[in-house]
């Protein structure tokens, strides 16, 4: 099995090269020249030439790609054109906030979506199925950012139940010391109940938004997977064997589990985008807001690093899903 995993990882290497080529070309496509920004308005011609050489911009394009490739391998994602700060450090600093938001959002979304999809599949075209299908379609159709805005309008402005969408903790509170990077968990660990409580109340609305948006595809796909399993030869044969309904249902559940988890894994990629938009609306200060702001401001060194990190994250999730499949499917572990 470890051999299989090694082969799977070996497949990732060319993929990474393609990803890097893509992020490299992205900046070339922008046509922006960062030299002016980096060297400053008062730079002399010599200084500009120096900056240009330091970025290898005076070299042919394939050399530039080589330089970029080498830098990324050394963990150097370059510097922001606007703030001059190293991109990787900024990303690492903000990643926990994003992961926290996504983790709870996807957990709740899957916790709602999987049972709903299964229940719909057990009685296709029943009233529960009709309602969940419509809700899932609605979830597909609601613009993420609009949902966030409406949530804020209703729960902050109208009802006053939620804090304003301004970050991860009350502005007048000091964040707890960084242990995990999640204010909620760090607050609990430091027994700083006030900070933990504030972090929690700030989390509720954005997490709810991510959960709603992520539940829609999970419901749809879980239903489709379970319907396919229920129509399979082995479930039909289980009925012909007179197995009790509970056992047949359990069999259907176990056989649906792997495809559902695989689907959620592939769906994570899209949910990263969703989370970014939610972050933007709630001024979450995570990776997503950082990246989107850079896109809007045209800071392509940051955009490049941001897109690269998101892609790497997806690759990691896909690998994790592969490992999960290997551990749960009898066939996958043995096949060459």
């Amino acid at each position, binding site marked *: 099995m470890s051999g299989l995993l090694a082969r799977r990882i070996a497949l990732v290497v060319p993929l990474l090269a393609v990803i890097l080529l893509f992020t490299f070309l992205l900046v070339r496509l922008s046509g922006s020249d960062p030299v002016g920004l980096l060297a400053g308005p008062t730079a002399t011609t010599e200084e500009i030439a120096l900056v240009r050489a330091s970025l290898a911009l005076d070299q042919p394009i394939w050399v530039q790609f080589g330089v970029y490739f080498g830098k990324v391998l050394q963990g150097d994602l370059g510097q922001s054109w606007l703030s001059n700060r190293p991109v990787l450090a900024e990303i690492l600093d903000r990643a926990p906030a994003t992961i926290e938001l996504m983790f709870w959002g996807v957990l709740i979304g899957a916790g709602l979506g999987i049972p709903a999809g299964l229940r719909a599949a057990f009685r296709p075209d029943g009233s529960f199925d009709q309602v969940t299908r419509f809700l899932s379609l609605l979830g597909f159709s609601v613009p993420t950012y609009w949902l966030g805005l409406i949530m804020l309008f209703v729960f902050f402005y109208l009802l006053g139940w939620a804090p304003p969408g301004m970050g991860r903790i009350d502005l007048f509170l000091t964040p707890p010391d960084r242990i995990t990077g999640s204010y909620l968990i760090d607050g609990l660990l430091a027994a700083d109940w006030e900070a933990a409580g504030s972090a929690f109340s700030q989390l509720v609305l954005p997490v709810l938004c991510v959960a709603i948006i992520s539940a829609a595809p999970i419901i749809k796909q879980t239903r489709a997977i379970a319907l396919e399993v229920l129509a*399979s*030869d*082995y479930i*039909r*044969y*289980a*009925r*012909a*064997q*007179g*197995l*009790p*309904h509970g*056992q047949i249902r359990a*069999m259907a559940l*176990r*056989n649906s589990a792997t495809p559902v988890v695989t689907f959620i894994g592939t769906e994570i990629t899209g949910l990263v985008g969703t989370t970014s938009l939610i972050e933007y609306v709630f001024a979450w200060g995570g990776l997503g807001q950082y990246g989107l702001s850079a896109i809007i401001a045209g800071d392509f060194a940051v955009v490049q690093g941001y897109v690269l990190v998101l892609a790497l994250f997806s690759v990691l999730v896909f690998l994790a899903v592969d490992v999960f499949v290997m551990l749960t*499917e*009898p*066939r996958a572990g*043995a096949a060459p």
Partner: protein
Amino acid sequence: MTLLSVEDLHTHFISRDLDNQIRVARALNGVSFTLEAGRILGLVGETGAGKSLTATSLMGLLRPPARVVGGRALFEGQDLLAMPEAQVNALRGRDISLVVQSPKSSLDPLTRIGDQLIRIHRAHRKVSEAAARDRAVEMLASLGIPDPARRMAAWPYELSGGMAQRVLIALALMNAPRLLIADEPTTGLDVTVQAQILDLLRDLVRRTGIGAMIITHDLGVVAHYCDEMAVMYAGAIVESGPVREVFGQPSHPYTANLIGATPERLRLGGPRTVGGPPPNLFRLPEGCAYRDRCPQAGPDCAQTPPDVALGAGHIARCHRVAA
């Protein structure tokens, strides 16, 4: 008491087409036959004649849009079609077992075969896990599976087609059923494996005295392994009787055509036989469904043909035989 007696079974597929018109496919139009314990009945006919549908109808395994619209299926005197679902479900896999034609995809892919055997046994009988395990090993051994104790731990995907079919038969026999229905049990298997599986089934019936129904489109299988046969066409049985009688004196033109068309290996070649396309179940002709293809058809064939007894349990449903 007769083991299985199917009387005038009608099954329809009821749906609506894109123009919102109700369409009824009359898939079974009065299927009647009987099967005694200790006998093997071969149900033959071309694809779409309703052979498998007969089995799924009487076992209560139909799914919409298919529906039984009339008839009875008496198993030891009890009507399976009138029973509550829970009662039929208790009979399935215990007293009536089914072996299907796609053994590999019919096994639960995430359960070792030993556990599947134990599961079906314990679903129907109050026995301990250990006792069920012993019986499962015994059953695999009796079906000629080498090293049965180790095979218990095998996953379905590790089995060959023939081996999977044996496991399916083992599953079917775990609870010592009184009726075994084998739906194309050897389709897709090597010829030698086919013979092994069918020999196994025949020995089993001879040894235990259960009744078996083999659904096949292979007349060779019927000739070699069955005691009785029933020929299906367009959802009805057109001729039935002891195998020797029917082969000796095929009386319905369709049966005669079938047997005559396959002199070499007594085998139906694929989905169609000579003499035209299969009947359109949405628009079956009045009277005899075979009259469009029948070389001997006459004006009287527009009337419903009678079942004509030809002696020794041999029956044909045809005007020509009556004449």
